[in-house]
């Protein structure tokens, strides 16, 4: 098991285009959307890191821009890393799918597409998962639904 | 040894004669047929109601429950209450179903089971018709019920029903072989197909004891295969409720559903009754050679009590199967038949023929 600082150092050498963020719970990288797939691919393939599991894929709405957060874990080496990306286009957000790297991402990405409206390029089967097409994107901060959401 | 302290043939002959004396033979025949029909119908209904109740109680006790206990003493009238409910339940019309075949199917199933009832010997002289091909007739009649199941599955216009019907068809057609072959084993031993003669031949020992190991094997195969033929668990693939909701009778309601339900229990009774007749001496009491006092007491018990008692024990065995085992898959079901039962059965028949030829049986 690597220490977090060691891991951060290793990450910067392997993925130099990503920005390492210090002082977080896990080693954290911020990536531009166009680099995302190659970065995650390298994180998985590199034998010193071998992030074999996509633990969690979270769609975020930061208010101004949208984002996707990837929690990667290596059970073999017992370490975790977080990869973040931000998309500033709220109207037509799109990002590369990582289904080809982690097949398990398929449902996660469909969920994010369903609830936040982020499109994933090259996703094998991008459809809404829970809701039908008449719904908006409920996890966005500006989503309004006066009938179903009653705030006290 | 004397078994005929209860002989019903004189009783039936007396009815026949008194009827013929007072009217034309044609009318007498018609009235006799009517009487037999009504008697069998009543017996049918009673057996059906009782078996449904028995099944509930048996499975409840096996599952640490009480089972029905509210309607009547010990819940005895629960099935009657259910029957009344089913009679008043709406017959839900099915969209796009073939209505004629849809309503016809339950009747085919129930008629097939009804026809078998007539040939069963309940006691000496107490059977509607004593065909000289009795065993063969029973098999022939029981093979017709599957048509009703197939029609029900098809006419419901439901995909689950259709799959259930197809499974049921494949299953019943295959297992009929095993049922037939295991009965043939005993027919070889008895040398006759007439049910009354088969029973009579067991006067000095039931076939399951007299026929050595082949008879036991035949019995095991028979009881398993007939469980499969009656579509009961663990062979209830046709209605497998965790896969096909209710299979071929998914769309049925009310009295039509009751027919399917009743036919299942009556079929169970029939297969158990055949096994009783063929393997366990029918209505013959249990006698042990040399124990005269014991035999006298046994002989005092009326034969139909013996018959129903043995049948009941076998029915309990079939129920026990259902409430213990998980269900088989369709291909395993067919593998069991074609890879295990059929070859074993064929060898078994040959061994039995050898035993009979060499006179090794008791």
């Amino acid at each position, binding site marked *: 098991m690597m220490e977090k600082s060691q891991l951060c150092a290793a990450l910067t050498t392997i993925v130099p285009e990503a920005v390492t963020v210090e002082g977080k719970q896990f080693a954290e990288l911020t990536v531009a959307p166009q680099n995302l797939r190659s970065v995650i691919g390298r994180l998985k393939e590199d034998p010193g890191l071998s992030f074999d599991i996509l633990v969690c894929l979270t769609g975020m709405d930061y208010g101004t821009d949208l984002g996707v957060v990837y929690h990667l874990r290596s059970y073999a080496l017992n370490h975790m890393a977080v990869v973040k990306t931000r998309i500033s286009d709220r109207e037509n957000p799109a990002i590369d799918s990582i289904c080809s790297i982690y*097949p398990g991402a398929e449902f996660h990405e469909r969920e994010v597409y369903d609830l936040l409206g982020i499109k994933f390029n090259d996703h*094998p089967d991008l459809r809404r998962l829970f809701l039908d097409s008449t719904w908006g994107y409920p996890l966005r901060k500006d989503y309004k639904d006066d009938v179903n959401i009653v705030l006290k | 040894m004397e078994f005929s302290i209860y002989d019903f043939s004189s009783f039936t002959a007396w009815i026949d004669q008194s009827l013929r004396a007072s009217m034309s*033979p*044609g009318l007498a*025949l*018609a009235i006799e047929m009517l009487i037999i029909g009504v008697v069998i119908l009543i017996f049918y209904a009673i057996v059906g109601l009782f078996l449904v109740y028995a099944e509930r109680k048996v499975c409840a006790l096996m599952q640490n429950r009480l089972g029905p206990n509210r309607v009547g003493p010990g819940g005895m009238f629960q099935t009657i209450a259910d029957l009344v409910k089913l009679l008043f339940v709406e017959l839900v019309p099915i969209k*796009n*179903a*073939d209505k*004629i*075949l849809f309503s*016809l199917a339950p009747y085919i199933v129930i008629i097939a089971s009804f026809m078998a009832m007539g040939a069963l010997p309940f006691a000496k002289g107490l059977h509607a018709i004593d*065909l*000289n*091909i009795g065993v*063969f*007739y029973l*098999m*022939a*009649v029981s*093979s*017709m019920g*599957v*048509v009703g199941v*197939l*029609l029900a*599955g*098809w*006419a419901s*216009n439901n995909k689950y029903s*259709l799959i259930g*019907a*197809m499974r049921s*068809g494949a299953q019943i*057609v295959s297992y*009929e072989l095993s049922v037939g072959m295991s009965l043939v084993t005993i027919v070889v031993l008895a*040398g*006759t*197909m007439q049910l009354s003669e088969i029973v009579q031949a067991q006067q000095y020992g039931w076939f399951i004891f007299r026929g050595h190991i082949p008879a036991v094997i035949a019995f095991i195969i028979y009881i398993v295969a007939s469980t499969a033929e009656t579509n009961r668990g663990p062979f209830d693939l046709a209605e497998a409720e965790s896969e096909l909701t209710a299979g071929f009778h998914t769309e049925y309601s009310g009295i039509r559903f009751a027919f399917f339900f009743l036919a299942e229990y009556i079929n169970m009774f029939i297969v158990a009754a055949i096994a009783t007749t063929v393997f366990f001496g029918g209505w013959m009491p249990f006698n042990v050679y040399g124990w005269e006092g014991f035999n006298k007491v046994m002989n005092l018990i009326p034969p139909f009590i013996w018959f129903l008692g043995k049948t009941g024990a076998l029915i309990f065995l079939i129920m026990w199967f259902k409430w213990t085992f998980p269900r088989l898959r369709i291909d395993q079901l067919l593998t069991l038949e074609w890879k295990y039962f059929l070859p074993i059965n064929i060898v078994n028949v040959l061994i039995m023929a050898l035993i009979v030829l060499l006179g090794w049986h008791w």
Partner: protein
Amino acid sequence: MEGKQIMFAVFAIVIVVFSIFTVTSRRILRAAVSLLMVLISTAGLYFLLNYQFLAAVQLTLYAGGIVVLIIFSILLTSQLDHKFEVVELKKTIFSALAAIAGFIVVATTILKHTFEADTTAATEVNMEVIGKSLLNTGSDGYVLPFEVISVLLVAAMIGAIVIAKKGSPVKEEKSNK
């Protein structure tokens, strides 16, 4: 009227009516069910004639076996709402003529023949006799045709299995997509 005659009339009517249904029904499964009724009634006639063995064979093989197979294959191949199209008038006329011609031939034969009342009492055929003659190698034995048919049936069955087994199971296509 004797009871037997009543029963004969019932069976005859059922056979005639359901035969007509069988050929006129536009739904294939209903035709099959009508055929089943015809076959069962035929078995009933055999029972009436005390040909119990033949009746049971009729029930097992035709009602329980062949009709089930027919229904089975209908279930496999056709759809519930499928109906046959109405046959053209020309074809109807032609088949009607053919049927009538056949009927005339049969009717004239029956009318010309003088039936003698069977004086011997109806006897049940002993099963042992049937069994022995089925497996008899003598001049009136059936063992040769019996075996020939067995071989033929086995060949047919093997052929059917070979044809049915053509498709390969999908499991082999399983891949990590």
